[in-house]
């Protein structure tokens, strides 16, 4: 999980606040988030990047503790993501843009990405290439999933696979979120 990852609460998780703690239940396991964990949970809103959540938590601690606190918060969020209590918040109407220094070419089944600034390259698989092409047609992540679902109706992991690839492409600098480019 990269620090700029945006997370949201899974709708299948039931949550209740008890003073400064939070109890979570997914129909099988009961979990308790005391104090700081409950604060972190309250800050996950589907829009805030993980690093912003960590900064908010660290702001309430002595300055010399900021670094370790940020690391712990990011690890905590990554753990909640691994336990499927949180999920990536990229599958909304978020759109992506190809930065102007990124070029690409299709070579038969493969799509090859090229960064003209330093010559860096990345090859995408056939399915990854299809996702790339849809994104370059100004499609949101949600529309990408919808389009591919028609092509691959028996792929239950499709939304997660699309999320994972888009998150990786953003982290590696091949794509940026639409808001970032306009800024």
């Amino acid at each position, binding site marked *: 999980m990269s620090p700029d990852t945006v997370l949201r609460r899974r709708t299948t998780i039931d949550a*209740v606040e*008890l003073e400064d703690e939070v*109890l979570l*239940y997914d129909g099988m396991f*009961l979990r*308790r988030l005391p104090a700081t964990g409950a604060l972190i949970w309250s800050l996950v809103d589907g829009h805030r990047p993980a690093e912003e959540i960590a900064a908010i938590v660290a702001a309430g601690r002595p300055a010399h503790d900021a670094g370790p606190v940020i690391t712990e918060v990011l690890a905590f969020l990554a753990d909640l993501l691994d336990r499927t209590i949180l999920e990536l918040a990229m599958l909304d109407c978020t759109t992506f843009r190809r930065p102007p220094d990124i070029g690409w070419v299709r070579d038969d089944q493969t799509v090859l990405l090229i960064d003209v600034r330093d010559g860096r390259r990345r090859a995408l698989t056939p399915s990854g290439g299809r996702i790339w092409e849809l994104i370059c047609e100004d499609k949101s992540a949600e529309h990408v999933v919808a389009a591919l679902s028609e092509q691959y109706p028996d792929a239950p992991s499709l939304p997660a696979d699309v999320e994972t690839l888009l998150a990786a492409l953003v982290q590696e600098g091949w794509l940026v979120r639409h808001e970032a480019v306009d800024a």
Partner: protein
Amino acid sequence: MTTTDADFASHAAVAFAALPLTTGAVDVLDLDAYDGTVASNRLTALLSDVTIGAIAAAGGNLLLHAGAVARPDGATAVLCGASGSGKSTLTAGLVAAGWSYVTDETVCLDPQTLRITPFRRPISLKPGSHEVLGHLRPVPEYAGNWVVPPAVLGGAPLPEQPLLPELLVFPTFRSGARLDITPLSPGEAAFLAGTDSSRLSDTHAPLQALARLARRAPAYRVVHGDLDAAVRGISDLLAAA
């Protein structure tokens, strides 16, 4: 019918009488299936099946793996804990101190009102507690768990008022330990109670029911190495609740 069989039938009748009213469905238990040469073993197995049947019939309710005793006004102390935590021994000790016996196995709470349905089944006491509960020794005495009917336990009769949880206790027996009573936060209490619940996924809005319980009843962790000290400590908490 041998003396042993007669005792078994008598205890079984008490066990059935302890069941809450059902919707009219009839369950048939094959007593011949309970093999064994010692009455207490067969009875323990029967009680286990009766309990499982009662839990299955209580779907939708919040079911805590707990004992419980009540004040005359219906205020109830719920003693939560896994098997081996000493809750049956503690329940028997509190009943001997004069509180009303509600259950030693499963506390059944309405998830909205938290009203408790009694489940006054015979208490099954492991050999480890026989020395401190000698007054409950069966005659003739037999090896293994003692199965003690509610009528023999003593204590006050069940209150006429509705039973509602006013105290949550999470006991732990530790040989030689001094009595230690520690308050728990509502979050801790709800989490521990939920961890010790039966079929939480069948409870209607389980998280909200646990939260409702934790907000209503103050909770304490009680570590003890002496039954009398634990009974005094919990009695004081229940009297003040």
